[in-house]
């Protein structure tokens, strides 16, 4: 699968994502620049973590208006795969490609630690490598990860099955102490209604190799690669 990792000024997880796709999973991966207007036939676009444009105004707000995002929007609207991690999630929300908003953490602190997530769906290209209800351990590192929206919008999101990851304790149960940032309904990741654009605050690319001591994030990327290959196979047949 050809994968494009977008580099904004201030991105700092771009090489980590590239490494997982290129060296761990042996995929054709390239970097795309925030001023690019062409995605060069990439099937998967990843918006990585970092502090794009210094997080000025609001996290992701300036990046959402950069030239590459017009192309990412067209890609998403055509059903192309888009994954936003951390700052990438913030950018997708600011661009209106996903619903809701990320506010400062309830603690007002930058939180950097492993959290437990419950996988709420296993029928998406992003989550076919997991089982529904599975609990995985993935690190977070952010100051603005507090997912919020109006109650009726949250109800609609839940009813449509667009909540993909939730912060839980090690046993997979919801608990205030397991919610690291105050997110409404413990939401850690959401998908668009088309199922092809996923945003998540945790960093699966930081736990995708044995040498890192945790491989819980690898199934997200390997699942994506497998799903894309299956889709291609179905298209050919």
């Amino acid at each position, binding site marked *: 699968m050809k994968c494009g990792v977008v580099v904004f000024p201030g991105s700092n997880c771009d090489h980590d994502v590239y490494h997982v796709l290129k060296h761990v999973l042996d995929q054709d991966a390239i970097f795309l620049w925030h001023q690019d207007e062409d995605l060069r036939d990439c099937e998967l676009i990843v918006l990585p973590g970092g502090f794009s444009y210094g997080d000025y*105004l*609001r996290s992701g*707000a300036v990046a959402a*208006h950069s030239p590459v995002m017009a192309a990412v929007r067209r890609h998403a609207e055509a059903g192309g795969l888009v994954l936003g991690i951390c700052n990438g999630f913030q950018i997708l*929300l*600011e661009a209106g490609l996903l*619903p*809701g*908003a990320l*506010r*400062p*953490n*309830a*603690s*007002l602190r930058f939180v950097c630690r492993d959290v437990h997530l419950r996988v709420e769906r296993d029928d998406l290209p992003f989550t076919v490598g997991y089982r529904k209800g599975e609990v995985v351990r993935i690190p977070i590192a952010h100051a603005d990860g*507090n997912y*919020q*929206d*109006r*109650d009726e919008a949250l109800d609609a999101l839940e009813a449509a099955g667009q909540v993909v990851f939730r912060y839980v304790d090690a046993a997979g149960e919801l608990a205030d102490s397991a919610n690291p940032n*105050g997110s409404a309904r413990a939401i850690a990741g959401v998908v668009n209604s088309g199922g092809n654009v996923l945003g998540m605050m945790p960093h699966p690319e930081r736990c995708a190799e044995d040498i890192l001591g945790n491989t819980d994030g690898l199934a997200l990327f390997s699942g994506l690669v497998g799903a894309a290959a299956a889709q291609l196979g179905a298209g050919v047949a």
Partner: protein
Amino acid sequence: MRARVTVYPRREILDPQGKAIHQALERIGFAGVRDVRAGKSFEIELDGGDAAAAERLLAEMSEKLLVNPVVEDYTVELLPGEPS
């Protein structure tokens, strides 16, 4: 033409900064504070002097970039006089 756009979190949205400031005000002895919302303001200078056109432009800027309408509200004021 000078203007000020004031942006603040919507009332129903959790505002961790406003809450922390509220608690700090109480801690240093200011009683009777009911609520604090922490926002930001932008002073913007525009070409031209047509107030109605300026208000339209400022509303468009706000909706497109300055404000996240999911979680924020805003007000626009035109300011008198030239910048000092």
